[in-house]
C-alpha cells in the first residue's frame, strides 16, 4: 500500500499505551504525522512528553498500540520481530545521545555492525565501513576503540554507523545532548549536510538551537502534537 512516492512516514491517530497492571499510561495519545522524503524535521518537547516513544515507533523499535503507521508504504503494525529488525537494518539509521558504541569493537568494526546483519561479504563490509569513516572525518582513527576517542568523535562514529546501510531515515535522539556547544554545532552541520545530500533527517531535542536546523519543528506535549511549523 503505497502512500504516494514522496511521503515516507505517515502516522494516523497513533496511540501508545503502557499497561502497568492497574494503571494505564498514555505515552502517545493521538499523533498524526506526515514526513516527506528529504525533509529535515525537529521534534521538540520536554522530558516525559512522549517524544522518545514517538522516536521508538518511527524507528520501528516499538509498535503503536493503536492507529496506523506506514513507513515507506509498509504497514508496520503487522510486522513481526524479524521483519522489524530488517526494517531497522535497511531503512533506519539511529544516532543516540550517549553514542551507544560497543566498547570492545574498534571504529571500523562499530561502523560495519549493520552490514554484518545484512549479510554482506567481508571485503564489501570493510570497504563501505572505511568509506563512511572517511566521510565523517575519522580516516586516521579507524582502528581506535571508542574509549580512545572524544565525545564528538564517538558521535561521528555513530553517524557513520547510521549511514553505512544507506538508510531512508536518520533518526537522532538528542544527538548533541552529551556534547559541548561547539562540538554539537559540528555534529549538527553534518546532519545538515546529509540532509542536503538528500537524506531524511529526524532529530529529537529539547534544545531550540538544535531544533532550528530543521525545516519543520514539531512540538509535542503530553503525548500529543501541539504545534507544527
Amino acid at each position, binding site marked *: 500500500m503505497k502512500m504516494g512516492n514522496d511521503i515516507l512516514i505517515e502516522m494516523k491517530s497513533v496511540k501508545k499505551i503502557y499497561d502497568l497492571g492497574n494503571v494505564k499510561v498514555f505515552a502517545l495519545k493521538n499523533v498524526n504525522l506526515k514526513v516527506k522524503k528529504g525533509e529535515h524535521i525537529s521534534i521538540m518537547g520536554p522530558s516525559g512528553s512522549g517524544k522518545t516513544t514517538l522516536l*521508538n515507533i518511527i*524507528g520501528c*523499535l*516499538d509498535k503503536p498500540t493503536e492507529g496506523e503507521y506506514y513507513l515507506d508504504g509498509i504497514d508496520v503494525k503487522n510486522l513481526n*520481530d*524479524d521483519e522489524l*529488525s*530488517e526494517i*531497522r*537494518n*535497511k531503512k533506519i539509521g*539511529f544516532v*543516540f545521545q550517549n553514542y*551507544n*558504541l*560497543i566498547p*570492545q*569493537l574498534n571504529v571500523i568494526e562499530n561502523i560495519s*555492525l*549493520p552490514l*554484518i*546483519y*545484512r*549479510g*554482506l*561479504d*567481508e571485503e564489501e*563490509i570493510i570497504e563501505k565501513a572505511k568509506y563512511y569513516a572517511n566521510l565523517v572525518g575519522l580516516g586516521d582513527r579507524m582502528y581506535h576503540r571508542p574509549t580512545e576517542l572524544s565525545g564528538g568523535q564517538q558521535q561521528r562514529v555513530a553517524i557513520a*554507523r547510521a549511514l553505512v*546501510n544507506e538508510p531512508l531515515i536518520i533518526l537522532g535522539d538528542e544527538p548533541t545532548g552529551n556534547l559541548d556547544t561547539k562540538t554539537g554545532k559540528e555534529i549538527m552541520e553534518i546532519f545538515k549536510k546529509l540532509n542536503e545530500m538528500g537524506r531524511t533527517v529526524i532529530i529529537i531535542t529539547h534544545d531550540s538551537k538544535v531544533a532550528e536546523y530543521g525545516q519543520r519543528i514539531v512540538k509535542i506535549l503530553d503525548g500529543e502534537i501541539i504545534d507544527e511549523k
Partner: protein
Amino acid sequence: MKSKIYYFLRIIKIGIKNIFLHKLRSFLTILGIVFGVASVISMLAIGEGASYEAREKIKELGSQNIIIRSVKLQEARITQETRAFVGVYGLVEKDYEMIRTIPTVEFIVPTWEMKEEIRYGDKIVQGRIVCTYPEYKDVMNLGIETGRFFTKIDMELFKPFAVIGYSIKKSLFPVEDPIGKTITVRSYNFKVIGVTKEKGLMTETTGFTAEDVNFDIYIPFTTGRSYFGEFEITSKQGPIIRWERNWVKYHRFIVRVKDMDKILTTSAIIEDILKTNHKKDDYEILVPLQLLMQAEHTKKIFNIVLGSIAAISLIVGGIGIMNIMLATVTERTREIGIRRAVGAKRKDIINQFLIETVILSSTGGLIGIFLGVLIPKLVTKFAGMTTIITWWSIALSFTISVGVGITFGIYPARKAAYLDPIQALRYE
C-alpha cells in the same frame, strides 16, 4: 553462502575476543568441562587397558576350550601327616573316556605335569614338565620360535624329545642354539627339538593364579608316562623336609569343542559326568568363554559407573558455564540493545551467545582431551598399567562438551535475544 561463512567467522572472532577479555573468569568457567572430559578419557583408557589385558589372557586359554584341572584337596594334605599314606586325587581314565565320547567334543588333550629341575651342563633351572599330546600346541595356541613341536609318531615311538619354553631356553641356552642339545630331568635325558614363543603372564585379572608358561617344557605323553609313572612326588617344606606322594592319573584335560555355541552345554555335561565319577570335589572346570563373558559384563558395569560420574561432572561443568553466560548477558545488555537497534534479529543474538558458549565448552573439551591423553600415558609410564586410548572416547567426549555448550547456552542466549531492545538500549 560465502557471506554466511563470513557471518559465522565474525561471530566466532567476536566470541573469542570476549572470552579473552575475561581470561581468568573464562578459564575458571571451563575447568568443570576440562576435568570432566579428562576423567572420561583417562578412566576409559585405563578401564579399556585392563579389560584388554584380561581378554587377551582368556583368549590365550582358547575361547573354544574347556579346561578341567585336578585339584589337590586340603583333606589329602592333612592325611599326609601319617607319612606312609599315598594320596589319590584328580582326573581318571574313566573321565577321559566319557568326555571323549560326548558328541560335541572335537578332541580332548590330557596332560600330566610335575615341577622339576631341568639341567644342561652346569646350568639348572626350575621348570614344569608337561607330558601331553601333540594337539596341545594348537589348543593352547603355542607359537614355535625355532625347531618344531613333537608329532604323533614321536609319541607312538616314545621319543625322548622336549620342546622348551622361552624362559627355559634363555636360562639354559643364553647364547647357544638349543636344538639338538640334550637336557636332563631327574636321570632322564631329552633332546631339545623346539622352543616355544614367549607368552604373556597370566595374571589375577583372569581369575587364575599366575602361571608362567614360559617355564614349561613339553614332552610326549607316552615318554613321560614310561619315565615318570603316575606318582606326583613333591617336597614339603618345614622343620623336616617331607615327601608327599600322590597318585594322579591326569592333571589337566583340555577339551576342544566343535562349535562355539555348544561350549556352555558341553561344560554342563562334563560337570555331570565328573560329579557322578568323583565323590570328592577334586577337579575344577574352567570355561574361558564364560570368563570372557564375565569380563565383558564387568567392563559394562565399569562403563556405566564411569559414564554416570562423567555425566555428573559434565552437567556440573555445564551449569557453571550457564551461570557465567547469564552474568555475561546481563553485563552486555546494552550491547544487545545496540545490535538489535542496528538490525540484529533474535536469531543473530542467539547465534552470538550460543557460539560463545560453545567456544567456551569446546575449548574446555580440547584441554580436557589433552589431559585425558596425557594422564593414561603417565599411568602407563609410572604405574606400568596397560592403557588404551580409544578414538571413540575422544570423539564422544568432544561431542559431549560441544553438546553441553549448546544445552546450557540455549537459555542464556534466548534470554539475551528476548530482551526488549528499548530497555536494553537504556540499560546502565
